[in-house]
């Protein structure tokens, strides 16, 4: 039905009413009777042995309720924080996972690592207590530089050469052979700069213990509360799963950084049980900088082999990936299965070989951040392609077209383990070029030149693998959990609908888009649909929100449950109308008997299900509530073309993004307004990486960009208005035909910006972020 609030409509969001009036409820807005406050004492050193911690003065501080060290947690049986994805090295050996106690026990390995927890009646008391701790550290030289990290001091006793794994993907021999016959080889050294996610809501946790029930409740800022509960129960041993409820209320952004199970909420929920008091912790931004998992941070050498006519023959990539000091929850998968597998991009490169060595350093753990592996892969591929075009004197868009996988090639199996289901890459590029008025670019460049500026244009034709993920594939590659999603559709007695999803929204608009699906499928007014999420007490075990999966996987689960509702509704209607169930059709919110004018509304059927006066109880259970689990058969493959035009002031090095066009293929779209919003946000982060953002440690491991004084967040006046458009090839294997849109902006844009900056300057490469001084120096030939 072409519902006004159904699939495809730019419906205004349900969640906005509370957010624009200050009535959202975020974790820090919550409180509990008798609540105490937690303060974490954090290491000022990047690497040190903990010789002794004297807690006496801290414990004696006014208002301090308790002081706990790592040893206390360990003695109580609290286990290490695990990594959920086992990656194997080239030689078949398992990756090495160093012990990661939530609170450091014998040693600290990055600045900001917690080594004690002080609980106070007030936050000030907890802070005073933390300052009163007397700690004897034996400082050790820190390992900071990634490129040399395998050859310096060994951080963990169990990890020789600081190497977590040395992984490969693809056919080395075939790739080497391709390079042998190459007419031209483009070679690049690429550093993908470290980013700090910076959701505007800092992480927070409120732990409560109900002594009567022996159960724990944790309110926290998690993107996937079920995973949090699973890890805390099964690995960390905080409480049995059935005695632990994890609730993520409104969450103020995540971008990946709130997927992971961190030390703080672990310690808080444990301490609530120990102290028998509610314990609350809210990160100060300074803590977020130090202790949230960071993103990206690769050093790469990459080579592209081309034939004389520009055909891609082979791609070779060697990457060193920074894991930070410990393995965060999904860290190992990011530079491997979310990175190496994307190296085919949109191209028919026949031979690809990727090697990734992942190393530990004395820096904050690195894990998934918006795009997670795919932005890094796109950056490698799209920088190489653009540079190759310049080197062989071919238009960068022509070289891409020369190598695109064509619509007739699908399903297309890449040399790096993925099978793309569908796509039309030229369609996106054509549309993007029309929007950017590519033909008139030369004129614009001349105008800039006349004004003393340098103008450049850059392209990026990206692909991503989203909708994470087919469980069997992921588990066979080392994932420790299944990756399905659950959706429950509860039809209320009066015909309104409550949807319970395992996907969690922290800005992505689930309450709106999932209601649109229900409204469309069941013909129920949009206003009469309520979507619940983020609570292990409400939904079945599910995997939450990351990897642009909520709609493709979570939405598909809801569709499956909806189908079950309709099927049962038909049976009920058939009975009530004395018809054959096969003759009942459901359309526009009514159950109709074919070739008759007999019909029942959805609400009438719902009512009959719950008030079973005349009801076939021997054939059908009463009630109208269905649940479905959906495990996708394949990834989805959103793709698109991003074009960036910049103007550089060579005198100061300031880069202005004067035009940014993104044309994306997300398959079918449920709410175009929401999709555009997701793209805008991703673009800001991708452009931010290219021009502004940089997590910088000094050579002793101190985080120098540790506040908004130095970490350059994109602000309104750093960005242009974007031109965003779509093309559509529906996903072939999920019921909605959707692909996911949450990460595309961050995946595609960075390479486009740097391609534009290098074009403007007429240079082969420039370091990221391309800050004014970097640009100024590059323009001077330094």
């Amino acid at each position, binding site marked *: 039905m072409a519902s006004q609030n159904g699939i495809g409509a730019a419906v205004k969001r349900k969640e906005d009413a509370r957010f624009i009036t200050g009535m959202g409820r975020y974790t820090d807005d919550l409180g509990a009777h008798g609540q105490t406050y937690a303060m974490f004492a954090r290491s000022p050193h990047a690497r040190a042995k903990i010789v002794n911690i004297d807690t006496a003065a801290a414990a004696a501080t006014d208002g301090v309720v308790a002081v706990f060290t790592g040893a206390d947690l360990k003695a109580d049986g609290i286990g290490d924080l695990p990594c959920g994805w086992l990656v194997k090295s080239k030689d078949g050996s398992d990756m090495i996972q160093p012990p990661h106690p939530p609170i450091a026990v014998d040693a600290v390995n990055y600045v900001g690592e917690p080594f004690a927890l002080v609980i106070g009646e007030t936050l*000030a008391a907890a802070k005073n207590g933390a300052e009163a701790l007397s700690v004897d550290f034996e400082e050790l030289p820190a390992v900071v530089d990634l490129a040399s990290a395998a050859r310096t001091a060994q951080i963990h006793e169990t990890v020789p050469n600081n190497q977590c794994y040395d992984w490969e993907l693809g056919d080395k021999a075939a790739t080497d052979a391709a390079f042998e016959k190459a007419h031209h080889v483009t070679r690049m050294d690429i550093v993908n700069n470290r980013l700090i996610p910076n959701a505007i809501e800092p992480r927070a946790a409120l732990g409560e213990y109900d002594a009567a029930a022996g159960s724990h409740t944790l309110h926290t800022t998690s993107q996937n509360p079920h995973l949090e509960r699973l890890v805390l129960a099964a690995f960390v041993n905080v409480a049995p799963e059935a005695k632990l409820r994890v609730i993520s209320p409104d969450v103020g952004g995540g971008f990946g950084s709130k997927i992971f199970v961190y030390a703080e909420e672990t310690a808080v929920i444990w301490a609530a049980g120990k102290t028998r008091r509610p314990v609350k912790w809210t990160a100060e931004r*300074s803590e977020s900088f130090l202790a949230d998992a960071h993103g990206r941070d690769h050093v790469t050498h990459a080579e592209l082999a081309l034939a004389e006519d520009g055909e891609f023959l082979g791609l070779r990539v060697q990457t060193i990936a920074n894991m930070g000091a410990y393995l965060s929850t999904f860290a190992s998968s990011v530079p491997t299965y979310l990175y190496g597998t994307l190296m085919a991009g949109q191209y028919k490169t026949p031979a690809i070989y990727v090697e990734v060595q992942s190393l530990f350093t004395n820096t904050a753990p690195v894990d998934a951040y918006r795009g997670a592996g795919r932005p890094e892969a796109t950056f490698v591929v799209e920088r190489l392609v653009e540079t190759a075009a310049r080197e062989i004197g071919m238009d960068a868009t022509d070289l891409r077209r020369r190598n695109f996988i064509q619509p007739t090639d699908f399903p297309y199996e890449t040399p790096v383990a993925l099978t793309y289901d569908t796509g039309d890459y030229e369609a996106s590029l054509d549309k993007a070029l029309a929007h950017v008025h590519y033909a008139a670019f030369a004129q614009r460049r001349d105008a800039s030149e006349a004004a003393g500026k340098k103008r450049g244009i850059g392209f990026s034709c990206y692909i991503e693998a989203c909708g994470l993920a087919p469980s069997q594939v992921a588990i066979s590659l080392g994932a420790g959990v299944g990756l399905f999603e659950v959706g429950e559709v509860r039809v209320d007695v009066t015909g309104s609908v409550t949807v319970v999803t395992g996907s969690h929204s922290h800005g992505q608009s689930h309450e709106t888009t999932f209601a649109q699906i229900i409204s469309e499928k069941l013909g129920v007014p949009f206003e009469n649909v309520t979507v619940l999420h983020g609570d292990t007490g409400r939904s079945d075990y599910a995997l939450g929100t990351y990897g642009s999966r909520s709609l493709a996987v979570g939405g598909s689960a809801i569709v499956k449950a909806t189908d079950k509702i309709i099927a049962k509704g038909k049976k009920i209607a058939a009975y009530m109308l004395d018809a054959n169930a096969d003759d009942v059709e459901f359309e526009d919110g009514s159950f109709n008997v074919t070739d008759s004018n007999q019909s029942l509304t959805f609400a009438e059927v719902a009512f009959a299900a719950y008030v079973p006066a005349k009801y076939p109880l021997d054939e059908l259970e009463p009630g109208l509530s269905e649940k479905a689990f959906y495990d996708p058969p394949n990834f989805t493959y959103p793709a698109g073309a991003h074009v960036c035009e910049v103007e550089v002031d060579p005198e100061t090095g300031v880069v202005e993004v004067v035009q940014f066009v993104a044309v994306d293929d997300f398959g079918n779209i449920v709410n175009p307004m929401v999709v555009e919003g997701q793209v805008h946000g991703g673009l800001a982060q991708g452009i931010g990486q290219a021009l502004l953002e940089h997590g*910088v440690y000094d050579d002793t491991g101190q985080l120098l960009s540790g506040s*908004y*004084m*130095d970490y350059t967040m994109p602000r309104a006046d*750093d960005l242009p208005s974007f031109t965003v458009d779509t093309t559509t090839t529906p996903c072939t294997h999920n019921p909605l035909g959707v692909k996911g849109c949450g990460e595309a902006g961050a995946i595609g844009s960075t390479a486009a910006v740097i391609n534009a900056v290098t074009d403007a300057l007429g240079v082969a490469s420039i370091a990221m972020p391309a800050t004014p001084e970097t640009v*100024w*120096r590059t323009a001077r030939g330094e």
Partner: protein
Amino acid sequence: MYAFNYHKPASLEEAAELMANADDGAYLSGGMTLIPTLKQRLASPSDVIDLSGIEGLSGLSLDGNRLHVGAMTRHADVAASTAIPALADLAGRIGDAHVRNRGTLGGSIANSDPAADYPAAVAALDATVHTNKRSIAGGEFFTGLFETALAEGEIVKSVDFCVPDSAAYEKFPNPASRYAVVGVMVARCADAVCVGVTGAGACAFRATALEEALSADFTPGATDGVAIDDGDFNADLHASAEYRAHLVAVLTKRAVARLI
């Protein structure tokens, strides 16, 4: 924040007395630097003495070719003033709207942050700083990194600026904090050309070599080839000393271009 005693005196005398009697007092004007510092627990004054209750410390008035600006005048109010457009422009580019709604001229210059904007104007506009004890020539006010000629407990009451024939402020903001990486105010008063520079060094200063070149030839090209010694310039994540020196030249040139 550590605990402290908060006071809001009604007169300069009372404020000075509170300071004299405090173990470790701190004056609070707009609080745009002090409060974030207290929140980080990077200072622990025993007493915080809020100057906002003292009458007569804010407002602008023109007296001949001197603009008198009260120390507690907020940046937003200077930004909205018309007597010295370049000063208004400078004030309108300090921090963000919220900083401009709270931050004050007196607080800014007494703090002498090397990256603050106002010091460039104090240096370039032949300013006089009036305190509760004396008057200090603008050229002698800033003495080093976060250091001024103010004595312990001395309070800035107001600043007089020369109303120049023409002036322009050029700022290269720190992309993250929006403080000045470099800020240059070029002012022409009668025959004199003044170039006040902030952000580049430990404190604001007048770039005399540039002034000489511009006095001889007030054109953007006149500064080409003027050597700017970056030996003592600041360096941080965002800008090396060398780059700052380059920006001093570029911003000066751009300010001059706006004035001719």
